[in-house]
């Protein structure tokens, strides 16, 4: 398990590279190994950074609270390293504000929202 500080550093680096348009994210089909009947992946983004494929997505699903005996919705942002044939080499799913910020920046970058707005306002 890599150290928390290394992952945080990578997340900040990816955020910076995305904002400065040094890395290009695209909507993609999530690797089949990420499929899980209990959760759904609404949008999956993938980019190549320094020769490594990196995936980023939001996983939504229902979880059961045994104490109160109720189902509730959960959503979390997940960062994965993708290897040959869509194999997941590493998955980071801890709650992190840096990861939430990266997800927002990536979503805007992949959808090219600036370009859409410029076209609409012409």
């Amino acid at each position, binding site marked *: 398990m890599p150290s*928390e*500080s290394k992952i*945080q*550093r990578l*997340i*900040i680096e990816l*955020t*910076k590279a995305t*904002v400065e348009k040094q890395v290009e994210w695209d909507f993609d089909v999530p690797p089949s190994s990420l499929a899980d009947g209990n959760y759904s992946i609404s949008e999956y983004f993938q980019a190549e950074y320094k020769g490594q494929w990196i995936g980023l997505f939001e996983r939504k699903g229902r979880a059961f609270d045994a104490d109160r005996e109720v189902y509730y919705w959960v959503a979390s942002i997940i960062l994965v390293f993708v290897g040959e044939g869509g194999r997941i080499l590493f998955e980071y799913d801890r*709650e*992190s*504000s*840096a990861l*939430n*910020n990266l997800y*927002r*920046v990536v979503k805007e970058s992949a959808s090219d929202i600036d370009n859409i707005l410029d076209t609409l306002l012409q």
Partner: protein
Amino acid sequence: MDLENSSKLMSWLSLSGNVASLVSLIISFAVLRQTRAIRKAFIFRGRLPEFISALTRLSASLLMNYEVKGDTSGDLKKLNAVLRNLERKVESSERKAVKQLIRQSGRMPHPMVFWRRRDNVTFTPEEVWAVYSGTEALIVTLRELKKDLKWS
């Protein structure tokens, strides 16, 4: 002879009374110090979730304004104010990181290089990224601290 004995007894009693007063004064100070430490820890524990949420909000706003407007001065000022408040409440192990972030976000030189004042200069992108990175690292530290405090 009796008078001499009673005079000796009186001086012993007086001395032991003085010593007892001194000891109780020391104990009073120790108790006062402990009470202040407990109060500080209690306030910090109570306000920790508030600090985490304020830093999370400001960090997201800093990034968004940097991206959209390129102007982060408003966010940096707010961040600096939150950090100054936090500085007085954190333990010495976290205080160093908070102090460094205060210097970075408030554009203050290190105390040892006080002659290098650079007021009224806009923040470079590298400086903004350093503040953003430091804030996110501090959020992680405070979150871990919050988890530890549940068990103490």
